[in-house]
């Protein structure tokens, strides 16, 4: 059931097109809404168990022979993510019902992709097996690609979709490499088992390489510096998608991965430096560039980048706890708690802000902040929600963002005191970065809300006459906004129920029995809004507010500074250069050289390559043996058949008219069938006969289209090359057959088939049983290829026809 729950959205997706087509009066979203709603209530039932430390495990065998199975492992961390995915998912679907018009939009596409994503994301956070984790991971990339490209008529959507997929899938491939290395070192693909043997893994040769590869996967997915460039372009997606995938869930998959692998990798210095350093750099970079944006969703995208960096940095800091003695009494234990806490908070306030951005876009027709302004009186409800979200993002009380920002500052302050890797010298720099980034976070939060809702209304600039959004559209952001406030007042309840079980998954070594209250080993973290006048966090916060407020009021004067950066020096330009310059143009030139359209050339290349490889291997392995021991005598009728065969071949070669060539070829085919009959292979003979018949029929059909033989001009060198290749192929096959016959290195498999065909497969005809049973996989793929080839031919011919008709 638990494994099945992951796949429920995917199964539900099957019915969406039917519902969309046949029940047009009801918005398809209402049916979809049931799925996340059911799932969220299902996962809620796990809370009480997981809270007490009872992890739930369920598995489902998928490929037992490769030891791959779907294992759903629900501990604090994965349960929290599952609840976020389904919970935010419910709100997003609800929001989308009002956002997407049921008469104009291709709703079935949208909801199929969305449900596909839900399955993929649940799979990522619950899989214990790294291969299935990777599988789901790539599925999130694919569904994100489809969702960004949902309005595929727009160039920018397609560009953004491709960009996001290129970057995240490339990262995913690196991650797969890391997984495989890790599995080779640990001898298992199970993450839990790897965590259990983490100390031994440390000394492995490729430990650091695996670490870096896995981090590449996490960084690309979570839009860390310098891979963040795909996220702003992904804003072309419909706003519900941006709120769901690109702020609340998918981009947090990288965060999840880092958190999940912290117990394995935290002992490494490289891990601490990379995660903390890149996290802080991303935090700073994102917050600086958020102020540059003029698109509402662009601001939010960069702000998401920066907030993800913040969480990443906190996870890096939580890994330091492995390196200090008596970590339970230092402040580093707060880092993991703060990371998870901020993750929840970010999902609430950023989700609501994205939805508001969507509402503004929907009701005014533009997201350009230069045209917006003064919407406060027209859209009071939206303004309230936006204000709550922004103030929380800026880190002001009484909103949840304040609490986690305080904890972040606490963690960064303690980094300063840490000495093992010389953080004492760097520590102060990290603190400065954190404070500067916080100042800019403050600025862009205010920039977002006040430039949109206050100031002068420029009604003439807006494509539509603005009015308040329908109440249904406001429900979802309002729920999130209420949560933002509620969490501020009950942080410790949230901490007990959701955060502490997750923290235990990240820092298991810190606590002996974390779930028993009043035991010394429990997680004794409480969140306080008020640290007292003497605490440095308070003064840092005040400082941030003051500087932030000054910067915001003078925004108009220094925003121009961003224009100093030339467009050519950005990472986007680098991406464009690689994609367009190197890959697109370079590869086009290369393929123009190799693939000029002549099938005969292709065949010649292929045959030459096969010849070279096989004969080369035979020489290299010294495998030539020719002995005629045990060969049967050649009978007269066999000799006659061979002569017919050779004559047929020669006729085909020298024939002047095509019909003669076809007849010659047919003779060759039928003679080969006779040979099969002679050597007791009735199945092959039968197939060969029918194939010959059908290919002759095909020849008759296409005969009309073929050019006349001998008309083609050919350069003599090419003919000689062809002669060489065909002689080579003939020699190769002969040598191979003779050598194979002359030596038996391994026992023939015949006997095994003969012994088992009746008992194991219940059949009598070995050839057919091999096809459908022993090697059924091959057949399955063969018929798939066959089907694709058929479709390819159909498409090539039919599409060409319709284009011709268009020209007429």
């Amino acid at each position: 059931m638990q494994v099945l729950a992951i796949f429920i959205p995917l199964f539900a997706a099957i019915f969406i097109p039917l519902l969309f087509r046949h029940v047009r009066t009801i918005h398809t979203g209402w049916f979809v809404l049931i799925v996340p709603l059911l799932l969220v209530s299902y996962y809620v039932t796990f809370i009480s168990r997981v809270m007490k430390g009872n992890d739930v495990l369920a598995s489902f065998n998928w490929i037992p022979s490769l030891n791959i199975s779907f294992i759903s492992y629900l501990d604090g961390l994965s349960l929290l993510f599952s609840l976020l995915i389904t919970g935010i998912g419910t709100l997003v679907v609800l929001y989308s019902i009002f956002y997407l018009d049921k008469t104009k939009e291709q709703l079935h596409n949208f909801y199929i992709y969305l449900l596909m994503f839900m399955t993929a994301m649940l799979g990522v956070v619950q899989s214990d097996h790294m291969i299935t984790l990777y599988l789901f991971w790539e599925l999130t990339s694919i569904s994100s690609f489809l969702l960004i490209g949902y309005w595929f008529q727009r160039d920018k959507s397609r560009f953004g979709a491709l960009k996001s997929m290129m970057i995240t899938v490339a990262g995913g491939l690196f991650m797969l490499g890391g997984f495989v290395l890790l599995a080779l070192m640990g001898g298992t693909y199970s993450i839990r088992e790897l965590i259990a043997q983490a100390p031994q893994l440390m000394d492995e040769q490729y430990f650091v390489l695996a670490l870096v590869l896995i981090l590449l996967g996490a960084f690309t997915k979570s839009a860390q510096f310098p891979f963040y460039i795909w996220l702003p372009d992904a804003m072309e997606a419909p706003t519900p998608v941006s709120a769901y995938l690109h702020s609340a869930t998918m981009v947090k998959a990288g965060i999840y991965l880092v958190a999940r692998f912290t117990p394995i990798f935290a002992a490494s210095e490289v891990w601490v430096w990379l995660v903390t350093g890149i996290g802080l750099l991303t935090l700073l970079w994102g917050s600086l560039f958020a102020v540059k944006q003029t698109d509402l969703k662009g601001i939010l995208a960069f702000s998401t980048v920066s907030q993800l960096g913040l969480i990443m940095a906190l996870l890096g800091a939580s890994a330091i706890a492995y390196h200090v003695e008596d970590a339970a009494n230092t402040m580093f234990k707060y880092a993991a708690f703060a990371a998870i806490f901020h993750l929840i908070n970010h999902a609430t306030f950023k989700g609501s802000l994205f939805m508001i951005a969507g509402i503004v876009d929907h009701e005014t027709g533009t997201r350009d902040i230069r045209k917006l302004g003064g919407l406060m009186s027209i859209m009071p409800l939206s303004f309230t929600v936006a204000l709550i979200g922004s103030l929380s993002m800026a880190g002001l009380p009484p909103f949840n963002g304040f609490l986690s920002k305080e904890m972040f500052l606490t963690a960064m302050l303690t980094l300063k005191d840490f000495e093992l890797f010389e953080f004492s010298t760097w520590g102060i720099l990290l603190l400065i970065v954190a404070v500067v980034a916080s100042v800019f976070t403050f600025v862009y939060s205010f920039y977002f809300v006040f430039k949109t809702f206050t100031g002068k209304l420029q009604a003439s600039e807006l494509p539509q006459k603005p009015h308040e959004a329908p109440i249904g559209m406001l429900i979802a952001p309002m729920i999130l906004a209420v949560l933002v406030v509620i969490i501020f007042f009950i942080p410790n309840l949230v901490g007990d129920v959701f955060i502490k079980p997750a923290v235990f998954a990240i820092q298991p070594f810190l606590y002996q029995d974390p779930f028993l209250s009043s035991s010394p080993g429990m997680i004794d973290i409480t969140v306080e809004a008020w640290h007292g006048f003497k605490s440095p966090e308070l003064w840092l916060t005040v400082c941030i507010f003051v500087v932030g407020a000054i910067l915001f009021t003078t925004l108009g004067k220094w925003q121009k500074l961003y224009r100093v950066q030339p467009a050519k020096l950005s990472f986007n330009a680098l991406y464009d250069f690689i994609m367009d310059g190197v890959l697109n143009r370079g590869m086009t030139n290369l393929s123009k050289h190799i693939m000029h359209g002549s099938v005969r050339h292709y065949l010649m290349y292929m045959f030459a390559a096969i010849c070279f490889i096989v004969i080369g291997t035979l020489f290299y392995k010294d495998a030539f043996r020719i002995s005629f021991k045990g060969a049967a005598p050649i009978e007269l009728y066999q000799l006659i058949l061979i002569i017919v065969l050779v004559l047929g071949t020669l006729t085909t070669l020298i024939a002047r008219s095509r019909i003669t060539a076809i007849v010659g070829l047919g003779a060759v085919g039928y003679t080969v069938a006779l040979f099969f009959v002679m050597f007791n292979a009735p199945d092959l003979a039968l197939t060969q006969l029918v194939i010959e018949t059908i290919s002759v029929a095909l020849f008759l059909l296409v005969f009309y289209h073929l050019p006349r033989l001998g008309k083609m001009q050919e350069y003599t060198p090419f003919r000689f090359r062809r002669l060489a290749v065909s002689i080579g192929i003939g020699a190769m096959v002969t040598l191979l057959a003779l050598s194979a016959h002359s030596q038996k290195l391994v026992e023939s498999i015949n006997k095994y088939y003969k012994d088992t065909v009746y008992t194991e497969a219940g059949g009598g005809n070995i050839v057919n049983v091999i096809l459908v049973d022993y090697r059924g996989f091959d057949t399955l793929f063969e018929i798939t290829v066959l089907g694709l080839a058929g479709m390819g031919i159909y498409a090539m011919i039919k599409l060409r026809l319709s284009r011709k008709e268009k020209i007429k």
Partner: protein
Amino acid sequence: MKVTKLKTNDLILQFTAKIVFFIIFFFSIHIFFAGHYTPGGGFVGGLLTSSAIVLLVIAFDLKTVRKILPINYMYMTATGLILALATAAFPIFVGKPFFTHFFDYFNLPLFGKTSLHTAALFDLGVFLVVVGVTMTIIQTIGEDE
């Protein structure tokens, strides 16, 4: 299609084709079912069926055959693929490895002791794909002027 223009009055061919078609077709069905114990199977069976249809195409023409057998061969291919995949995937839902085949012996009326295989279902998928693809190719190329 050019081929049809070559023959204007193929009474004998057309008459023979009508009968031979059924002979080949039933033979292909026989071959298909016999496959597990004696020479034959889905692949050959499928090819034989397509050759029977091709015979009709040669004797009459594509339009007529399309009228007699109004089959969308693309759908046929898809059905075959789905059937094959479903047969292969079915065992994982009862806790067996992917592609486990089941068989047992039954006493059926008329047939006597008969073995029933899930492998035959898979083979039926192969059969459908082979017929579907061959006919798709022949139809598309044949209709292309």
